[in-house]
């Protein structure tokens, strides 16, 4: 399609030239649309507008470009002009002008932003007079002191570097140590600060002086320690570690022993022991029992204020938590459907969770505690109980097994205490004998170092152990003052004396 000159003109929106032949009526007639075309609405193609003219305004809206939501202006639209500009660095003493890129908006006369980091640390200067009056030191000449101060200034008081670069020809041929340099520098500074008029207050002067403090002997000793620490052989390091572990173990034993003794005293004497009460364990049952205890105290307090407070365990035994009432109907229903309902106390003591999901009973077989598992297993073996495999893990059986294991644990515990006390007694006897000066062979022979054996039935030894422990704790209280020193020697109960010897 050939484009006419008028088309070209209208595309470029150039107004029609004045007609060369003004007489032509057709040219005149075309003029008004040309002016209209100048106001062509946005979005209508030129050809179409030429066809339909300005008479179709309703269509204009449809041909207009769809207007999307306005783009947010995030402030990044404005162009920033940067300039390659020479600058003057205020930290330089010469007139070097380097160039860098800066925003054109930055004031060309402003200071170089990095010049402010050029901070000179305080530097002490002294006059000849001051040196003669205050700073004389037989080990240092003025020249060497000057040299030291110059180096310290040069390297901004980095003494490691100062010491490295220190090359003053010393008269006696011995080189200065780092401590020598520090000591001289700081002592001179301290003397200068002390003897010069101080413009500020005393506190700031004291602070400055303390910042200049340097104890040479201590530093030398510290450095020697560091060196000796570094030159340890691997064997020495291993030995040190072993000793540290040993010490920790001893401390732990001491703590445990103290705790046990306090507990024992509390059990025996109650409130008269003067010891603080046992901290209440966070257990549902315990919390319940203390509540009831308080209630009971509130009622009975006026009647019997002097009674010693019974230990919380016995209180909980005396006051069992109230059982949920069973109606006759529900009982019948339960019996019919073989439903067992357990009391709250039982569930809360076994687990804190209010609801226990469905589980196999066999997963509830009690496991032995790691610490005493071996001993308990030994005891159970001797009794003839296979504790790790229940043929029929019913509720009753598990409860029974639990009780057996618990008892076995008590047996082992008591045996341990007994052994310890036996040994204590034997030791005391031996000491007593030694004090009397008749160290007989029989006493020494009565303490054979045989490993612990458990041969008796559990019931027997429980009774036996209980009696023994009460007896011996009483005697232990009598020798309280000697116990502390023995606590370390009686740690190892596994090698205690045989029980039969005692009996």
């Amino acid at each position, binding site marked *: 399609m050939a484009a006419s000159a008028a088309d070209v003109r209208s595309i470029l929106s150039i107004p029609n030239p004045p007609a060369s032949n003004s007489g032509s009526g057709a040219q005149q007639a075309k003029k008004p649309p040309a002016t209209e075309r100048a106001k062509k609405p946005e979005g209508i193609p030129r050809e179409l507008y030429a066809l339909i003219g300005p008479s179709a305004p309703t269509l204009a809206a449809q041909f207009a470009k769809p207007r999307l939501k306005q783009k947010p202006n995030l402030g990044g639209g404005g162009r920033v002009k940067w300039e390659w500009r020479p600058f003057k*660095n205020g*930290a*330089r003493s*010469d*007139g*070097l002008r*380097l*160039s*860098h*890129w800066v925003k054109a908006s930055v004031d060309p006369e402003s200071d*170089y*932003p*990095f*010049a402010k*980091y*050029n901070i000179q640390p305080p530097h002490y200067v002294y006059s000849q007079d001051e040196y003669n009056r205050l700073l004389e030191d037989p080990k240092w000449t003025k020249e060497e002191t000057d040299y030291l101060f110059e180096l310290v200034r*040069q*390297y901004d008081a*980095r003494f*490691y*570097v100062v*010491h*490295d*670069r220190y090359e003053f020809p010393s008269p006696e041929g011995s080189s200065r140590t*780092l401590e020598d340099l520090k000591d001289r520098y700081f002592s001179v500074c301290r003397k200068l600060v002390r003897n010069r008029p101080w413009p500020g207050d005393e506190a700031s002067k004291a602070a400055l002086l303390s910042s200049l403090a340097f104890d040479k002997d201590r530093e030398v000793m510290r*450095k020697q320690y*560091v*060196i000796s620490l*570094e030159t340890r052989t691997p064997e020495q390091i291993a030995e040190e570690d072993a000793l540290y572990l040993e010490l920790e173990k001893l401390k732990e034993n001491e703590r445990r022993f103290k705790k046990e003794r306090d507990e024992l005293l509390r059990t025996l004497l109650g409130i008269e022991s003067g010891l603080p009460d046992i901290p209440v364990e966070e257990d549902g049952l315990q919390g319940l029992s203390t509540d009831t205890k308080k209630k009971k105290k509130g009622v009975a307090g006026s009647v019997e204020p002097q009674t010693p407070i019974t230990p919380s365990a016995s209180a909980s035994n005396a006051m069992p938590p109230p059982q949920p009432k069973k109606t006759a109907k529900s009982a019948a229903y339960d019996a019919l459907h073989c439903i067992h309902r357990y009391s709250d106390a039982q569930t809360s003591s076994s687990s804190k969770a209010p609801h226990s999901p469905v589980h196999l009973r066999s997963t509830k077989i009690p496991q032995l505690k790691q610490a005493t598992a071996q001993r308990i297993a030994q005891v159970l073996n001797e009794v003839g109980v296979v504790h790790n495999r229940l043929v029929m893990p019913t509720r009753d059986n598990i409860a029974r097994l639990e009780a057996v294991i618990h008892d076995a644990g008590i047996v082992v515990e008591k045996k341990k205490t007994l052994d310890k006390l036996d040994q204590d007694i034997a030791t005391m006897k031996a000491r007593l004998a030694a004090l009397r000066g008749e160290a007989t062979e029989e006493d020494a022979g009565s303490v054979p170092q045989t490993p612990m054996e458990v041969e008796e039935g559990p019931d027997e030894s429980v009774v036996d152990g209980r009696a023994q422990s009460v007896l011996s704790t009483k005697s232990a209280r009598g020798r309280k003052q000697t116990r502390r020193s023995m606590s370390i020697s009686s740690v190892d109960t596994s090698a205690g004396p045989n029980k039969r010897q005692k009996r």
Partner: protein
Amino acid sequence: MVNYGGDEVAALVVDIGSSSLRAGYAGDDTPKAIVPTAFGFIEEHVSSNGDVAMGEEGAPPPEGEQPQAVKPKVKLFIGQNGPSLWRSGMEVGNPMHDGLVQNYDSVPPLINHAFNEMMRVNPAEHPVLVTEAPWNTPANRERMAEIMFEEFQVPAFYIANTGVLNAFAAGKGSALVIDVGQSTASVTPVVDGFVLRKGLAHCALPQLVHAHAKHLLTTPAGNRPAIDLTPHQLIASKMPVDVNAPPKFQLREDRIAGTTATWRAWAEAREVDEWIQSVARVLPQGWNEQAAVMQGPRHYEFPNGFNGVFTGVEYCAVGEQYFTHSPQLVASNPNLPKTIPALIASSIQACDPDLRQVLMGNVVVTGGGSAFPGFVDRLTAELHRNFPVVKVHAPGNPTERRYGGWLGGSILASLGTFHQLWISREEWQEHGKAIVGQRCK
């Protein structure tokens, strides 16, 4: 801008090493121009005005060239096409020795090649930072400043220590820098950006490793004959042969007469280096013959067509030279360079006891020689055996490892707070050479 402390003034950084010269813009992470330091030259006995021609194009010498009328005209061949192209009668030289510039005559053409030919930059418009080895002499650094100010007309100049720059490249102010280059291995304690000169230890250990490898290749062993290291430039044709069979190849007889001894030595050294780089390694857990055998044999073909198989014991023994010397070697050679662990021990021993912990916690491994396979693992194992607390920083990126000194210079010269340290032209003219020692501590 102030947040990271950078302010770029389009400084140039030049790092000259034994194997290559690195040049680039401060603030970049890679040097723009890497030029081999070795260059070829042909002496022409023509009495002329003593111009030093640059490369084959015969670029004009930099202005301010000192008159060398007494010397014969020397044509230099620098860069990628320098010594590696065979030319009749061309000798090969290297201005560096022991990590220091020994011959300053060829340094301006080398730097000029990097600036004008490769970077196409006018050094008169840019401040220039040059690196130096930590054991550089004052006379040497003053000469470098003179070259920069008088021959390249730089507006400002600074010379910084590679030890410090390597520590900066690792982002540390205090570090124990272990730099293993092509000719020199060094251990440099850096504290607060200053080298502790008393703790500095360096030796020519990499050259010993190179000599060991060359000895291994050129002595017959087992079923393998002595290997001929003829470079490919001198070989006209070759035939494929079996493993360990004698090579069948034709020499370029026309070139034999024009080959100089220095070029031959340079080319053979390059063959040995390539063999080391592709075959040799070091065992990560100390010498153990069993472990070395377990590494398995490695195959390598030389330019003359000979291809050999090297056992683990052979090629692991090469890297082992970095860490231990055999007793018979020690007995036969009293001036043996120290091993890397011995260098570290002597360096640490010379430092203050308080600093030892700090330094061993900031060990920086750098230099192209440390890219030896297994080197960093072995070094870490050795250090852990002798020191309770060790932290080794070894960049995995080969550019950062090989050009750590340049990278540190690039960081330093683009810091805003550094620009007060430049030695300006004005100061140079006012104070003379003394300013270099005062400013660059």
